[in-house]
């Protein structure tokens, strides 16, 4: 059965790491929905967050292959219920549409915020789950969305065991 899984991979900060990671998904013909990377709470250790839809069996095998990479410390797989996750979306609309009172209502209802206002355009920001940022997009569309972009998922886990505890085991 297919489900959405979030894979967190902790790695050294070495050249080509992203490539090494994605090759493993490509080989198994798995499509990555989103991927983000940043330094983790431990200096020098990077954290990749990868979201994909597949079966538990496949994702477990992928994690096995990821952990085989020399520069990978550890990889974890989580279902949505085991993590707190978030994405950020930016929406660029014409400033003139603001004079239309409805847009303000939409922004308010979605708890979005206005990042910047230029005489010609303005940028709205919303963080949330995909469904939420998508809904705002759909509600803004009647007013004309000039640009829309959504980040990949970032996530932290609910279980309390920290990465540093795993690293100590290694």
């Amino acid at each position, binding site marked *: 059965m297919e489900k959405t899984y979030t894979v967190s991979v902790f790695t*050294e900060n070495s*050249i080509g790491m992203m490539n090494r990671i994605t*090759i493993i998904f490509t080989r198994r013909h798995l499509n990555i929905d989103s991927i983000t990377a940043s330094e983790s709470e431990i200096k020098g250790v990077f954290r990749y967050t990868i979201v994909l839809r597949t079966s538990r069996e496949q994702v477990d*095998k992928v994690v*096995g292959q990821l952990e085989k990479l*020399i*520069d990978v*410390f550890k990889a974890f797989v989580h279902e949505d219920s085991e993590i707190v996750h978030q994405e950020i979306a930016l929406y660029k609309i014409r400033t003139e549409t603001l004079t239309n009172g409805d847009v303000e209502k939409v922004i308010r209802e979605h708890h979005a915020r206005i990042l910047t206002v230029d005489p010609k355009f303005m940028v709205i920001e919303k963080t949330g789950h995909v469904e939420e940022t998508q809904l705002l997009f759909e509600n803004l569309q009647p007013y004309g969305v000039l640009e829309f972009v959504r980040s990949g998922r970032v996530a932290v886990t609910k279980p309390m065991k920290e990465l540093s505890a795993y690293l100590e085991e*290694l």
Partner: protein
Amino acid sequence: MNSIKTTGAQAVMKSLVAEQVDTIFGYPGGAIMPIYDALYDYVSTINHVLVRHEQGAIHAAQGYARTSKKTGVVFATSGPGATNLITGLADALIDSTPLVCITGQVASHLLGSDAFQETDVVGISMPITKWNCQVTKAEEIPAAIAKAFYIARSGRPGPVLVDITKDAQFGVMEFQYEKRTRIRSYRAKPKISKTNVEAAALLINNAQKPFLLIGQGIMLSNAEKDLLRFVEKSGVPVASTLLGLGAFPNNHPQYVGFLGMHGDYAPNIKTNECDVLIAIGMRFDDRVTGDVSRYAKQAKVVHIDIDASELNKIIHADVAVHADAKEALSILSELVQEKQHTAWLQEFKDAKKVEVETLQVSAKELHSEEIKMDEVIKILSDITNGEAVVVTDVGQHQMMTARYYQYNKTKSNVTSGGLGTMGFALPAAIGAKFGAPEKPVVAIIGDGGFQMTLQELGTILQSKVDVKIIILNNRFLGMVRQWQQMFFEKRYSFTEMISPDFVALAKAYSIEASKFEARTDLKETLVKMLNHKGSYLLEIMVAKEENVFPMIPTGASVSEVRLN
């Protein structure tokens, strides 16, 4: 170690010396010239084998690593030199062979500019190396090489590639070398779980029909003695994968044969009759399992491997032990009860009899005047006492050799298993001889595969390597022809081979050679070849349309193994 000013190229050589490298297989070119220049100062202490093609260099290094306990080392230049290594890298990765390949690269300021002979070899080789890296500064060379050797031979071994830019080779640095023994993100040796080994022992002790499958992992962890002890104490029958051949003496009474698609009848059918299946240092390749949904379903499975990702990858393990084979076997030997499984072993022997009898009947049906591959292999096995290093290429002759050569010594079987690379055998045999100079090395090759890398006869000539080459010439790409016969209505689409005069060809390289066509004195001919001082090429004309049986057709279960 005292630090001394050296160039990056000299640092490469000094690093190799620090790793006790005594043999390098390579081919020079523009981007690796500084390293070759540094090598020139070591000609009296390091053996550099000049091959005729970089694919030959890497296969030779594989042969060397497989017969010795060392890491194979390869030098190649940038661009085409590096891309010619690709097949060997893929082959070494899938067959867990430790290699360190050093490639030259264009100067760092030219990287990414499509400079002459620039290829992104790090990018290309990423999925087919255990690890790779690019070095652009002289001072980074020793650490990169130290890391390369550590990664190549620790854990589950594999090929590693270090790409060194030309400016890094010219650069000056203070040489200091420290062997690597740890990488914080990589655990070479797993911590063995005692509880898991105990669970495995419990299953084995309660089994009525335990069955052990071994793979190359036994040899890679030097666990041959521990294996023997475990097998003799527990009384289990043992079968081997293609790459595992030699890890357990084939003349041992508990050895029941070779597994898989062209393996023996008994171990294949008994896989689906045993109650506990123990797999050590093997990875349940599809050539071993056939249809996995009908593989050993009745059995409890114990799987021991050093590579965690192999556990539960193909076959669910009731007890998965993530461990080095040697360590696991030594603990397991303590825990298992002393037993004999006489009746169960007899079942294998009975099945073996069925196989032998059926194959004899089919052999009679073939044109009897034609020499069969298995006759050649059986005689060779006899006269070498199963103690030669046997290198095979890919195809029918490979399966026939695996079936009929009695591998009694460890590290005596060199073949391309996982990748099935035609052209592997000739260069691999050259390397195998350097890895095991005291043993006779016999390469058995098809007429097709020989022509993929026959230029390495030049290496034999120049390096005076003593390898015996047997070409089993069936005038066909035999294995493909067999499939065409069985599954494509005998439509022999482009599998007929016209070959040159192999004897004349060998002689052109000053290699003694002869052609054998009549059965009469096959044994004498083989003895003569073996006793010849120096290399020898023997072309044996064999039956054109012999088939390899038993066979598990693709998609069939191991219990559906066909005898004809």
